[in-house]
């Protein structure tokens, strides 16, 4: 069983959600982002989403835009991100999912990418601007190397398309919680429960909910409606608001609080 499948199986057996925080690799610098990833696992994260910076992140709001632009300014590259993933892999068995926009992956070459990610101990790939309709070459390469390509669905996705999208991917289904870009939100989007129910009826893959998941209360609200919660911008905002010497611990404390909420007790 893959690490991703095992994480969902274990969480399901305990009646809890998989907690999957996002780390912007290279922000504020590569060593700190690696330390942050490790701290998140220690705080109870069951899976890590590792963000690869891109110059034109069209699905991201101001927080992740700023973090990834800073990472690029600090010299982050895909080479550096893959090395960071391998470093993180050396200290944890948690599934690692790389998330990034299509062009840097295309330039690396999909076949080489799949092999290099597998060698680094990465388990899956999320590419928000590469639809299953256009990703055949990447999907074949990843499948050959045992990597999951995680498909995304959104509240605007019709039910019949949800089924088709899910069939073209594996691992889990990334459910974008809202119509919009990434970023911290006060409340979950109205209609989220109905959307997640529609996804559950249309697809067999476990549902991971991301975009706007900002507080332990948001996580608790997903109990019984999804199988995983992904949090990103809210953690970066907490990291940024803290004094540098305490930033990693503060962000990890939020992951711990969200992991508690994910127990669904």
């Amino acid at each position, binding site marked *: 069983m893959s690490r991703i499948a095992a994480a969902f199986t274990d969480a399901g057996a305990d009646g809890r959600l998989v907690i999957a925080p996002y780390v912007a690799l290279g922000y504020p610098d590569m060593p700190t982002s690696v330390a942050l990833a490790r701290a998140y696992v220690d705080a109870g994260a069951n899976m890590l989403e590792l963000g690869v910076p891109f110059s034109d992140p069209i699905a991201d709001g101001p927080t992740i835009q700023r973090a990834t632009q800073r990472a690029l300014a600090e010299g982050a590259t895909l080479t550096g991100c893959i090395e960071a993933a391998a470093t993180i892999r050396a200290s944890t068995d948690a599934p690692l999912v790389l998330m990034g926009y299509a062009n840097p992956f295309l330039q690396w070459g999909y076949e080489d990418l799949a092999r290099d990610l597998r060698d680094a101990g990465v388990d899956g790939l999320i590419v928000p601007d590469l*639809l299953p309709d256009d990703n055949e070459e990447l999907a074949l390469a990843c499948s050959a190397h045992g990597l999951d390509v995680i498909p995304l669905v959104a509240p605007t996705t019709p039910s019949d398309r949800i089924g088709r999208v899910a069939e073209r991917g594996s691992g889990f289904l990334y459910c974008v919680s809202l119509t919009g870009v990434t970023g911290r939100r006060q409340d979950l989007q109205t209609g989220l429960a109905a959307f997640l129910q529609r996804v559950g009826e249309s697809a067999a893959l476990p549902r991971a909910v991301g975009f706007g998941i900002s507080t332990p209360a948001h996580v608790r609200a997903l109990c019984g409606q999804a199988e995983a919660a992904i949090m990103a911008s809210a953690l970066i905002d907490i990291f940024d608001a803290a004094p540098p010497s305490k930033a990693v611990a503060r962000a990890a404390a939020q992951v711990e609080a969200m992991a508690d909420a994910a127990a669904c007790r």
Partner: protein
Amino acid sequence: MTTTADTHTPDAAGYFGTWGGRYVPETLVPALVELEDAFMRLRDDSAFQTELERLLHHYAGRPTPIYEARRLHEELGGARIWLKREDLAHTGAHKINNALGQALLAVRSGKRRVIAETGAGQHGVATATVCAMFGLECVVYMGEEDVHRQALNVVRMRMLGAEVVPVTSGSQTLKDAINEALRDWVTHVESTFYLFGSATGPHPYPLIVREFQKVIGIESRAQMLEQTGRLPDTVIACVNGGSNAIGIFHSFVGDPVGLVGVEAGGTGPAQTAATLEAGSPGILHGAISYLLQDEDGQIAPTHSIAAGLDYPGVGPEHAYLRDAGRASYVSVTDEQALEALQTLARFEGIIPALESAHAMAHAIELAPTLPGDALILVNLSGRGDKDMDTVVSALGAAG
């Protein structure tokens, strides 16, 4: 992906050959499918076409004339040069053709909020104009750097009732304006029509923009036959996203006519926006095409004196025409474009936009090398009023 049999229609997945496609977040897919369906339905709808033709004629001032640049010919020798006068269309550029077509689509689709990106401001002005005329809410995203260098167009857009949002991320030019417009669209997709200005972006935009711009080629082909008795030997247009070029090329693709796209070469290879000349295949803003990028796949900074040519991508149909050997692409520097702008002003009394001055610069270079019975048709895509500040400071800097 499958390949398309001809240059006229992308395949069902939106590819011209291997270029184009739909590389967008999932949230936008239903909106793009809906747009494609609406466009396919309405382009065969006679009421829609009649309304569009009425507006193009009575509102935009079409057909625009072709004009022979005789004094320029006397000066240069060689081929005779004809200009397709898109600068005479309402709002001063070809952008109005597409803006009218897409705004009619928006109205027919029941969307009352329109967003657009703009570089030079010409597409923003055209969009603000048609939104005022149709009574639609209009938001235009424009890079902060372009807000400064095209200040006149910002005033025009605001006068027309549009909200102009300066974009301060990234390079603060057209690329970043498109990023921000896409983010707006992802957020307000149910209520909002994205009136895309260039022949690039996700399918069906490259097709839609070409179809609304092909009137340039249809008119000028008939006008050349009528006024010169034959087709031109060469058609020249400036290219970045490439809407004016694809608009004039389209009607000549099946003819024995040379098609030349002129990219912005900036100050030279280190500071350029010549994507087909200096770029490589990549994915940006919804399409796979040529891009200016670094070896890590990050989009590279561009430079052109013409804000409307300062984008690191190119429309997928141009990539296809280049690969197929049907069109060729050259580049012209800032300096050559400035020189051509002044030449046309002094010999013909026409001040072209800096974008169109790139096409003129190549025509001026090419004409003397051709025989006296050769005909060149240049798409004079816009007028230069908006560029006077830029031209004055560039000439001042040059001494």
